[in-house]
């Protein structure tokens, strides 16, 4: 057990070391494009967004939940990229030829991605706070938001890693990634409440785990516990199913890739 922990720690620290070396990447990790969504999009649509429709004091406070979950989405789907590069340049082989538990490589990546995502979510909430968005459920609410983010992130990272192990070239990986992200964002309640979407879009959005996550995070920011709790309960169930499916698929892809 001690050895397992030693492996995971060493592998996770590798990602941390690398991040600290890539100064540019480090900067963009914290000041990420998602912030631009929040700041620009949020302010831009101030008047275009009808408060009656969004049921929120202003658009930016409505959008905040969407941007939080979008951050989780992007980070999660990109979570497998470094493993893809490791696979391509042979470093993964080197790791696999050592006597580590096979799962250490996967777990360390999960831990790293979840930690970075959580930090980014905090930055998003922090910036939103500067624009007057105060989470109505306080610190506990923020902790719950982080939990929801992590649960969603686990499944997404598993998908990403499964792709990393399965694609023949990394061009494929990035094509699929690009193809998935935007539809997932637009076919969710990130930008517009479900009730206000055209019928076919809100129908599709219901199948999107993002919608469930956003509809739980949003009341945590905008309303109170009694409104939020049922949604939180539902999203936990949705995420458990989602994660189980993704982890199962990911494990299969991993085992197949390992010959």
């Amino acid at each position, binding site marked *: 057990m001690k*050895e397992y922990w*030693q*492996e995971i*720690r*060493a*592998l996770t620290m*590798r990602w941390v*070391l*690398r991040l600290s*070396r*890539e100064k540019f990447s480090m900067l963009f990790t914290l000041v990420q494009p998602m912030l631009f969504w929040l700041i620009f999009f949020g302010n831009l649509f101030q008047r275009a967004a009808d408060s009656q429709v969004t049921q929120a004091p202003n658009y930016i406070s409505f959008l905040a939940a969407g941007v939080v979950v979008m951050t989780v989405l992007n980070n999660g789907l990109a979570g497998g990229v470094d493993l893809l590069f*490791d696979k391509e*340049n*042979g*470093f993964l*082989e*080197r*790791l*696999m*030829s*050592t*006597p*580590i538990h096979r799962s250490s490589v996967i777990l360390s990546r999960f831990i790293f991605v979840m930690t970075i995502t959580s930090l980014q979510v905090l930055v998003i909430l922090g910036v939103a706070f500067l624009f007057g968005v105060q989470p109505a459920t306080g610190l506990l609410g923020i902790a719950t938001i982080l939990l929801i983010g992590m649960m969603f992130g686990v499944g997404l990272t598993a998908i990403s890693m499964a792709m990393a192990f399965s694609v023949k070239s990394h061009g494929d990986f990035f094509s699929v990634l690009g193809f998935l992200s935007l539809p997932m964002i637009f076919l969710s309640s990130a930008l517009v409440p479900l009730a206000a979407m055209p019928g076919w879009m809100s129908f599709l959005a219901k199948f999107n785990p993002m919608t469930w996550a956003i509809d739980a995070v949003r009341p945590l920011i905008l309303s109170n516990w009694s409104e939020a709790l049922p949604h939180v309960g539902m999203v936990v169930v949705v995420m458990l199913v989602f994660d189980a499916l993704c982890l199962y698929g990911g494990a299969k892809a991993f085992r197949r890739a*390992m*010959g």
Partner: protein
Amino acid sequence: MDRATAIDVSHLSKSYDGHQAVADISFTVHAGEIFGLLGPNGAGKSTTLRILITLLTPSSGRATVFGLDTVRDADRVRQLIGYVPQERAIDRFLTGKEHLELLAALYHLPKDEAKSRIAELLKLVELEAHADRPAKTYSGGMKRKLDIACGLLPDPRVLFLDEPTLGLDVQSRLRIWDYIRMLKARGMTVVMTTNYLDEADQLCDRLAIIDGGTIKIIGSPVELKVGLGGDIVSLTLKETDRMTGLESALKGQPAIKAVRTTAKGLDIRVESPEKALPVILESANRLGCSVEFIQYNRPRLDDVFIAHTGRRIEDAAVNHDE
């Protein structure tokens, strides 16, 4: 003398995606020797190596490393082996030292032991001065040295090297050959794949020629060359039209063991040149073949390869890439 068996491969086969990479190969590696798998690209060398280092499971057959099965006892096998892959398997952002520290943790080495081993290895591969610079600043030769240091970190009983000098300059190649000889002197068993005949010839105690997924022959370089049964006289002819005539004229002769046509002439296997040369020249004169060059050599590994696979190793590589 009964030497201990380091590796035993028995009727190993591996196919994936409908392609048979390796078919029914068997060989043994003795403890403390340098064993080579010689063959062109696509021959199945890397696949065989990957099975031995537990990264692939065979489709059939088995392989053992010091008695441990590579599938059932994979974890224990990994404790005993070191691996130097063909590609530069390094992380550009980590320093040389950090690579070794990471691996030391993955091999569960205690901190003090790790520290001294890392210092020792950096000295061995002459990377001390660059140990704290990120690997992306390393030259190709330095990256390879780091690869080797990583492979040696666990002080393995068997070191597996996949094309150790591929793409390196002459000096680096010689340096690496020296390391490998030194490792053998320390008692390590070394298994390497290569497509370089000179490397196989100079370094390996024993080698297996592998082509098209099967082993053609196994033996020491000397045994394999002697096994060809004779020296080779190579004729380059001015015109090739009388070549087949000369070939048939020579074939029946007692001093001539075998004749093979090449693009520009004939390769003639002879027992003793003193008896064979006059016969060859006389036949060539009689048939009016003008001989441009005559070359005489003791068999080289090149000839061994041709004899057992029917083609030159360079030609085999070209065909595979197509």
